[in-house]
């Protein structure tokens, strides 16, 4: 009995395509969720191009119903009847689909998109069906595999079909399907194949053996994806470390002091991003998507100004006393954190990704690279390139390098060391501010954001060598990747401890090459 309704509808659809299509929307609106699910399943099994606008509208949540259960579709704020001419009897209420229905809708959409003229759309649809095809679609998929012209799409469809054929009564068909599944890298294929290993669910021994072989193949492919994924998150962590450590490397090389408030510059950069986002929301909501770009210069100048102020008021008076500088800047970081807590509250503030930074690039079935992280890696490299240019091609850079190598000599040659110190400090803090903008796009923004970064970035400086841009880049990415590769093996905490131990051992091997340029003893 429950199956009869879709059958009838199907028959109707075949007989009077236009009329039946005209009824789809109203039928759907009038149905209860269980019936709606049935409808969607039948649509998925029998795609019809004319149904496409309705499916699109459903997916975008533009379908509404009035009190008489007549379907309306919203178009830029106006409701028009989905079928025929009708005026809403009451203000139409938008339909809400539950998660199950949304999934079915996606499958139905994919079925329909198999009819699309662009091969890329068909391919995407076939890939969607690999995950979600229902037994009812068996016939459709068979037909499409037979008629599909594009080889890539055909392969994808064959795979989707294979998923369904795993329960085929004919062992030969199942065997074929199992072999086919062995050639994918889908996480779902693994669970499906694993289910076949069980003697209760799969009676044919040949199929079981084939399933084992296929499973091993799938697992190997999945491992590649996992490793690549870890390497990518390592790169991503590395790019953040790089942005955090770059400024530290400059100021440490120049002044020989560690600014413990450096992490707070990251934090302030992130909060500046938050403020810029708020500003855009209030003043120019139509350009909201661009706020991260606008936040970059703002964050740079805000943090650079704070950095310069710190240099002028505190750090300058502590030259030659690096340990005291450590303590004083720690005091500054305490004050900055508490200040932010008082102003913005102790909770995290919400910084939302704009559209163009959300989503990701599907590289392998089990590997998605989020756009935000890709862009941040690129951004970090861009900042490094800019810093390199600044240090090697400008007057300021020349002065910074001169003072780094020999402060007294540089002063004798007329380099205004005081000004250079201040500007370099501003530059270092500004870069950290940029890092804060990047960080706000992939993590939580709270007052303690910067706290944990000082140790990591210092380790980058230690590993990479003082005043060595290339060293910093290498060390940052190396540390990032090592961290992420170790994490799944031995856990995040033990991984961190292991890395710390490795660094201490590394310093044993290369104490001088890391800390100072080789040369004769000055003292």
């Amino acid at each position: 009995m429950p199956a009869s309704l879709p059958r009838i509808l199907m028959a109707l659809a075949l007989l009077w395509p236009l009329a039946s299509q005209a009824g789809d929307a109203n039928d759907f609106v009038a149905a209860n969720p269980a019936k709606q699910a049935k409808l969607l399943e039948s649509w998925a099994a029998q795609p019809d191009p004319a149904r496409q606008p309705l499916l699109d509208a459903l997916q975008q949540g533009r379908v509404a119903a009035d009190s008489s259960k007549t379907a309306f579709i919203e178009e830029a704020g106006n409701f028009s009847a989905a079928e025929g001419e009708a005026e809403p009897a009451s203000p139409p209420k938008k339909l809400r689909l539950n998660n199950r229905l949304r999934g079915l809708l996606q499958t139905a959409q994919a079925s329909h998109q198999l009819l699309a003229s662009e091969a890329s759309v068909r391919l995407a649809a076939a890939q969607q069906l690999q995950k979600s095809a229902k037994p009812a679609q068996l016939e459709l998929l068979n037909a499409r595999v037979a008629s599909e012209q594009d080889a890539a799409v055909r392969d994808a469809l064959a795979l989707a079909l294979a998923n369904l054929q795993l329960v085929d009564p004919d062992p030969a068909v199942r065997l074929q399907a199992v072999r086919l599944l062995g050639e994918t890298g889908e996480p779902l294929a693994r669970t499906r194949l694993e289910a076949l290993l069980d003697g209760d669910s799969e009676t044919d021994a040949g199929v079981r053996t084939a399933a084992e072989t296929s499973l091993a193949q799938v697992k190997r492919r999945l491992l590649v994806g996992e490793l690549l994924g870890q390497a990518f998150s390592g790169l991503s962590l590395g790019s953040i470390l790089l942005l955090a450590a770059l400024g530290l490397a400059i100021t440490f090389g120049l002044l020989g002091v560690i600014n413990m408030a450096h992490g707070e510059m990251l934090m302030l950069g992130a909060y500046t991003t938050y403020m810029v986002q708020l500003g855009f929301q209030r003043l120019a909501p139509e350009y909201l998507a661009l706020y991260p770009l606008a936040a970059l210069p703002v964050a740079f100048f805000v943090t650079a100004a704070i950095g310069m102020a710190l240099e002028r008021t505190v750090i300058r008076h502590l030259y030659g006393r690096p340990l005291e500088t450590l303590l004083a800047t720690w005091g500054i970081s305490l004050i900055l954190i508490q200040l932010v807590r008082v102003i913005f509250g102790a909770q995290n503030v919400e910084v939302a990704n704009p559209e163009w930074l959300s989503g990701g690039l599907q590289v392998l079935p089990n590997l998605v690279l989020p756009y935000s992280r890709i862009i941040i890696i690129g951004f970090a490299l861009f900042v490094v390139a800019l810093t390199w240019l600044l240090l090697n091609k400008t007057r300021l850079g020349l002065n910074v390098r001169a003072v780094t190598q020999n402060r007294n000599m540089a002063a004798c040659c007329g380099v205004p060391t005081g000004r250079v110190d201040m500007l370099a400090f501003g530059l270092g803090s500004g870069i950290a501010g940029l890092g804060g903008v990047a960080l706000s796009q992939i993590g939580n923004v709270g007052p303690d954001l910067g706290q944990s970064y000082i140790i990591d970035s210092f380790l980058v400086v230690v590993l990479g060598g003082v005043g060595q841009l290339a060293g910093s880049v290498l060390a940052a990415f190396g540390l990032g990747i090592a961290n992420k590769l170790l994490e799944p093996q031995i856990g995040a905490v033990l991984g961190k401890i292991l890395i710390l131990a490795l660094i201490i051992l590394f310093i044993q091997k290369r104490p001088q090459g890391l800390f100072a340029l080789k040369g004769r003893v000055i003292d």
Partner: protein
Amino acid sequence: MNQPMTITLAQKAGPRLSLAVGGLVLAILLALPLLHLLPADSALHVSAYTLTLVGKILCYAIVALALDLVWGYAGLLSLGHGLFFALGGYAMGMYLMRQSAGDGLPAFMSFLAWNELPWYWYGTSSFLWAMCLVVLVPGLLALVFGYFAFRSRIKGVYFSIITQALTFAGMLLFFRNETGFGGNNGFTNFRTILGFDITAQGTRAVLFLCTVALLTGSLYLGFRLARSKFGRVLTALRDAENRLMFCGYDPRGYKLFIWVLSAVLCGLAGALYVPQVGIINPSEMSPTNSIEAAVWVALGGRGTLIGPLLGAGLVNGMKSWFTVAFPEYWLFALGALFIVVTLYLPKGVIGLLRKEKEQ
């Protein structure tokens, strides 16, 4: 005419005055636990709260003293002394947990559905072994870390940051439940120590007296060291390590000795802290705590031994008052203290007092 006279008088009175003040403070400290034993309605009664607070500060003072030995004399600013303090505390805590658990497992282990004690808990029901751990664990860790650090001549800010990383790593490790030290919550709900009720007045008084004894002992040891040739070698090491090496001294041994000694003192302080305060958890290892200890030393005056005790008392006294009166502003005050002390009080309060006296 009068001026030279007063100077000589002050100079003569100097050591005697300090001795008198020191004696007075010691007498008060010894009297406190006895006053605590008085009936509660007595006018002179010292409450358990006060006694615990002062006891806690005394433990911190020992940490400050230990830090002064390495920083003030050998020039090694450790930002990880909280780790040694906490390790000593945890070793004592293990014993206390076993005491309150009786024959069973400590409560947090049953909670994790563990069936038996991890190997490193073996023997912790014995007070003596626990005391050995209090000394051995921080001492050995300091020895291994120091051996590698001093071998490769890590010093200055490198040393500071790496010690900070060390305590940070320790904190992360102890936060994990699987490490077997109660995770987040650490150890608490102690009942007895050596069979005595841990909250009893008598026990509190004895623990307090032990702390005073440890503090005085450490101070005496510190002075003996500082006035020995060993102390002078440390000072020389701080100021001109190369010169010292060309004089034929191996700095590594000297650094290692004072470093391990300092760690052990911290461990002992931690062991006395835990039964008095009644809790130990991984936040004791947070970098913030360790670096705060540095400001106690800086405020009091580095390389003076007495100064850091003063600093620990002042800062913690202030903290207790602030966190009650203006909790929001404590971090501002502490931050400002860091800045003011480093900028304007390079020699600390003691330096200020000495200057007063000279004028």
